[in-house]
């Protein structure tokens, strides 16, 4: 049964890689910036899933820590890029109204 389970993990990993390749197609050929951002976000989520399945394939539980790291970094990267393209800067205060008053 564990042999069959290995094939199940392998098929799952291959299908996740296939969907990552399709996400790369959208990332390269996306018409707008937001399409590319969406593709990057989905690609990161699929990377996390692939890492988790890969840890089961090679039977070492260490890589799930890296998967946690990827999940958090993916979110932070998406929010940072969005903030940069909204405000054209990264050091914008969180309280927008107060900073506007300070500028006056």
């Amino acid at each position, binding site marked *: 049964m564990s042999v069959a389970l290995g094939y199940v993990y392998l098929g799952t990993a291959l299908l996740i890689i296939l*969907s990552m390749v399709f996400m790369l197609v959208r990332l390269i050929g996306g018409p*707008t910036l937001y399409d590319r951002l*969406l593709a990057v976000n*989905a690609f990161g*989520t699929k990377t996390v899933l692939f890492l988790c399945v890969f840890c089961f394939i090679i039977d070492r539980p260490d890589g799930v*820590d890296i998967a946690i790291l990827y999940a*958090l970094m*993916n979110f932070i990267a998406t929010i940072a890029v969005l903030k940069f393209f*909204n405000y054209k800067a990264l050091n914008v205060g969180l309280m927008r109204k107060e900073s506007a008053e300070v500028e006056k």
Partner: protein
Amino acid sequence: MSLFVTIMAAAPAAAEHYVASGPTIDWLALLRFVGTVLSLAGGLFFVMAGTIGVIRLPDFYTRLHAAGMTDTLGAELILLGLIIQSGFSQMSLKLLLVAFFLLVTSPTATHAIAHAAYKSGLEPFLGKFKAPDLDEEV
């Protein structure tokens, strides 16, 4: 090679045991196997459906809908299948952490992307329906 030798050495004893006691099936392992396969298949269905949606749908907002479905239900189902297989251990705790972070962060990221696209004036394809006013205060 050594595994092969071990299996071949153990085979006659195993065959005698099988003949003596009848077929013994580990029902719990079988149940876990079936649960894992069903969960992984469901998760892969959602992941592939979302991928095909991202490739083929005509508009940014519809693509966003497909990707959001992939990020939540597909990811959670695949992680659930792995958790079923890993049992009650440290591995399943880490996988639960991954599932929790994905469940919190990916809808937030999807919402942030949609909000930023809407604020920047990207208009959706709406056919015969009218788009909401872009100048409206959000």
